[in-house]
């Protein structure tokens, strides 16, 4: 029974990881850029929420109304003024710059908010749970995050397949030069993609801050989890990413049930097994859907 419970908790955890992974996957799909500062920006958002919660009367959820737009703007600006300059045939400059950004963010946080573990508090919602037969308890907040992730991915997938912006995103990932010949500016398309990705990572960072504690150096693990979800799921597919995130979540929670405190290592190992035997991921799709 504890395994069933672990699987359920893992699926819910997968919702959180999907939020982390969607932004990474989107930015890679649009501009072939792997943002190594992805996790650091999530941590930044969590600290932003903490700041708002501490000063004002807002709870972490309400703080999202400020944090998400702020992070989206930040994403747009970072893309336009920094990342745009690194795009090209070689992935090296973009990797170096985003890795540099992650170090800058992490150490700036260390200087300003110390290395202490922090947590965002939601009061009674934190511990609220739905009791199922067999002693299984489904936390209200993880469930909400999972549902939210499903809704967000569905929306994003709808935007990509149905709207003009979505078509432009797919076109620009095929051939940016020709998109420009048709009167659209790839830089703007990239900028909005970065804004969406940063908005998503802000939600993920805050949600994670409610579920577990975080510190300035939590960013690397966030990045790694997002990456593992993307690769397990298969590049270029949003639903694959969701699936990959759920697989990773289950691997970790079941792993923790089997070998306490080893969940992260077990998650990595499951990722490596997928890499070895299913390198294309669960779904194999060329185009972003």
């Amino acid at each position: 029974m504890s395994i069933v419970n672990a699987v359920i908790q893992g699926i819910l955890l997968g919702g959180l990881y999907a939020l982390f992974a969607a932004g990474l996957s989107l930015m890679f799909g649009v501009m072939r850029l792997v943002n190594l500062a992805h996790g650091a920006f999530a941590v930044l958002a969590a600290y932003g929420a903490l700041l708002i919660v501490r000063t004002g009367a807002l709870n972490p959820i309400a703080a999202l109304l400020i944090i998400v737009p702020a992070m989206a703007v930040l994403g747009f600006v970072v893309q336009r003024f920094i990342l745009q300059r690194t795009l090209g045939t070689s992935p090296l400059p973009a990797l170096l710059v985003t890795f540099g950004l992650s170090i800058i963010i992490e150490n700036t946080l260390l200087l300003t908010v110390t290395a202490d573990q922090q947590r965002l508090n939601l009061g009674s919602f934190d511990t609220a749970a739905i009791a199922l037969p067999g002693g299984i308890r489904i936390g209200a907040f993880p469930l909400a995050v999972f549902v939210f992730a499903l809704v967000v991915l569905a929306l994003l997938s709808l935007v990509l397949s149905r709207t003009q912006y979505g078509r432009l995103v797919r076109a620009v990932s095929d051939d940016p030069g020709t998109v420009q010949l048709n009167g659209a500016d790839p830089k703007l398309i990239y900028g909005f993609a970065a804004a969406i990705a940063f908005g998503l990572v802000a939600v993920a960072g805050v949600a994670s801050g409610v579920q577990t504690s975080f510190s300035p150096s939590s960013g690397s693990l966030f990045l790694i989890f997002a990456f593992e979800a993307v690769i397990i799921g298969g590049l270029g597919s949003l639903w694959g990413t969701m699936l990959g995130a759920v697989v990773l979540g289950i691997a970790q929670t079941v792993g923790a049930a089997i070998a306490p405190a080893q969940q992260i290592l077990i998650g990595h190992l499951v990722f490596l097994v997928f890499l070895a035997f299913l390198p294309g991921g669960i779904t194999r799709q060329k185009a972003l859907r």
Partner: protein
Amino acid sequence: MLEISGLSAAYGQLTAIRDISLTVESGGILAVIGANGAGKSTLLKTIAGQLKATTGSIRFDGADVTALSTHERARRGIVLVPEGRRLFGSLTVHENLQIALSAKRSGVWSLESVYELFPLVAERRRRRAGDLSGGEQQATAIARALIANPAVLLLDEVSLGLAPAIVGQLYDRLPLILEQGTAILLVEQDVAQARRVSDEVHCLLQGRTSLAGKDLDLADISRAYFGAEATA
């Protein structure tokens, strides 16, 4: 309407076109001819903004557009159908056409009227563009450019790799496009084909204008086309 004077452009150190001047009037057509590597595509890319001009100017509707970026030029109506078609392979034909709506130009050309002009494209609208035949791709590329309601349509080697019958079909559409007041600047390697659609030709040789004018003599053209060795 499109006025180019003293235009040069380079790939790095290599100057590919030098001191080119030409004009195309609204509703008019001009064919640029020349051998492989003469600089025809380079000329069109420079006009469209994909390549920076090193000297000279491009004036369009009285305004200097030399410094504008490619998408800004497209929004003003300078639209290129690039060499090799360059469709978005993972999008459907219909989506390819929709992309050009981003130029935000209104005019006679809409999805419906373009499909009417190219029934072949209309039939294939649900297909992935990457799966089309060469002729279908070329028709789609022209259709896509029309959606932007171009004031000047730049066509780069429409006939490349296509059967003569298909080429004929595509060229048959040009008068219908010109009728709407659109100017066409087209690049063609096939001199006979170029002369059939346009009285006026502009011949490039190693990046320079070797001959330009109306109703030219075929012997003059072939000299200008192949350079000095043809006269020897």
